[in-house]
């Protein structure tokens, strides 16, 4: 049970199985647990340990490690990622193998200090191109930051064609058969892991792939889930597909896309959404589209959010709040990177109309750009109010393509109009 698993004559898996795990990092679900994968690489000049395991699983890790090496043979400890599920056993490992040198990425240095709370740490920071020799085996480092922490890196063993990829290409899936050609179907877990862990960093995924692509690879050994030895490049290819920009509008920088989500109780917010769309569409270079939140669900809309340059949300105010489906769409923004995207809110209301301001505040909290105050219209929009909507859409469109006309205002007028809007808001 506590036996190591051989990847090759010189490389062993010495990680831990955690089949009882159901929710990981609070936010991720797994139906059958996860694994913390750690590895040992033996060269003629000593042994390297690549990553460790969660503290609670240390016993498994040390038992497997002891089956493949003595502590005094360990010369090198590589940490591809410092998250506690991979560094939990590190302090004890350092105690048992005090002569071993630590190799971490440059961005990991301060994090390591914060993690171990020790001032006397001795470590070497490495980046792309750096190597460490174990005699007849060589570790080569790849600087692949933000996958999914700033400190992440990959380690490649040149003579074995094995890539120790860290969390990249991993998944939460626990199967003691361990190799991708032996375990149960884990495609869903692989996709789910990408969507929730790597997706917000997809530009960094592509940068990492340019470093990985030139390497001949026989095995990809990630820190969670199955070891990928059967057609490993399929997984690299899948990451490329998932991370690449696919829409013509993304590739063509001359066109900006605006996505207008709305939900409406009696059709007033729908009318606003359509008028805003018409206004935005009148700006050359803007492709605006409306989507009724009621006819989809937040998870389906994540693709739209990820690829849009500007995002508007229309919601009525019901009981002093935006409605839940609108909040669900806003919550799903965290699954991708919306920072600095253009954003705005609008909606019809009966008495008070708080929803628009609340949605705007949330957008600002996500560090989106909200250049114009949101549009609130009492009950059914009149023709004049629909014209206001078209104008709002037009202005948002102009902000999106960066052709908004320069405006000069006096501070007194600016603050007076804000104060008036606030007073109206409070009076309602």
């Amino acid at each position: 049970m506590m036996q190591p698993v051989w990847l090759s004559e010189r490389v062993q898996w010495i990680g831990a199985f955690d089949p009882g795990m159901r929710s990981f990092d609070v936010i991720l679900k797994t139906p059958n647990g996860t694994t913390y994968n750690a590895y040992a690489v033996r060269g003629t000049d000593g042994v390297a340990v690549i990553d460790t395991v969660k503290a609670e699983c240390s016993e498994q890790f040390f038992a497997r490690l002891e089956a493949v090496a003595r502590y005094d043979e360990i010369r090198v400890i590589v940490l591809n990622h410092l998250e506690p599920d991979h560094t939990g056993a590190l302090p004890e490992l350092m105690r048992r193998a005090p002569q071993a040198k630590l190799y971490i990425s440059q961005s990991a240095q301060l994090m390591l200090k914060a993690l171990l709370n020790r001032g006397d740490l001795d470590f070497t920071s490495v980046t792309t191109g750096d190597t460490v020799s174990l005699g007849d085996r060589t570790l080569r480092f790849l600087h692949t930051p933000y996958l999914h922490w700033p400190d992440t890196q990959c380690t490649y063993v040149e003579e074995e064609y094995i890539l120790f990829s860290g969390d990249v290409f991993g998944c939460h899936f626990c199967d003691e058969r361990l190799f991708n050609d032996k375990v149960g179907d884990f495609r869903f877990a692989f996709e789910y892991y990408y969507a929730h862990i790597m997706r917000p960093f997809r530009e960094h995924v592509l940068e990492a792939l340019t470093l990985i692509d030139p390497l001949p690879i026989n095995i990809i050994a990630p820190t969670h889930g199955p070891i990928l030895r059967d057609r490993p490049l399929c997984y690299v290819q899948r990451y490329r597909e998932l991370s690449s920009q696919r829409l013509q509008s993304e590739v063509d920088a001359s066109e900006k896309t605006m996505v207008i989500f709305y939900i409406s109780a009696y059709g007033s917010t729908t009318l606003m959404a359509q008028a805003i769309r018409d206004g935005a569409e009148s700006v050359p270079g803007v492709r605006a589209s409306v989507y009724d939140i009621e006819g989809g669900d937040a998870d389906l809309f994540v693709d739209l959010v990820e690829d849009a340059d500007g995002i508007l949300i229309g919601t009525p105010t019901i009981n002093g709040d935006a409605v839940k489906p609108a909040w669900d769409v806003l919550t799903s923004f965290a699954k991708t990177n919306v920072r600095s995207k253009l954003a705005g809110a609008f909606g019809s209301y009966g008495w008070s109309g708080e929803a628009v301001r609340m949605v705007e505040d949330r957008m600002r909290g996500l560090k989106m750009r909200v250049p114009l105050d949101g549009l609130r219209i009492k009950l059914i929009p009149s023709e004049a109010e629909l014209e206001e909507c078209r104008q709002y859409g037009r202005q948002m469109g102009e902000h999106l393509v960066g052709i908004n006309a320069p405006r000069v205002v006096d501070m007194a007028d600016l603050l007076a109009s804000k104060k008036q809007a606030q007073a109206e808001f409070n009076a309602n």
Partner: protein
Amino acid sequence: MAKAKVTFSDVNVTVNVPVGTRIIEISEAVGSYIAYNCREGDCGVCVFEVVKGQENLSELTKEEKAVLLAHFQEILDGWRATPNLEALQTKMQRENFAGKYCRLACQTQVFGDVTVAPL
């Protein structure tokens, strides 16, 4: 009262303000993408770029300088830092980041014409 012009280049709006006005008093009202958290010079979230006219801004206090430096460090260490971290980092190092081209919007007062932008 003496006046100054503050231009927010991200929204293309120029505001005529009495000298001594702080950026925080107007940036949100024009819809500029300068973001705030604590609003009192502690957190460093409202750091912005001085595009033009840095000589027309209030002197840097010791506190503002400290926060700017700390913020710089925080960005470098941050978990989910800015999307163009490397560009920012290079800029910070090359251009004497703390206090010259980057300031805190909640602290900085305007004494003459200036153009500002979110970082």
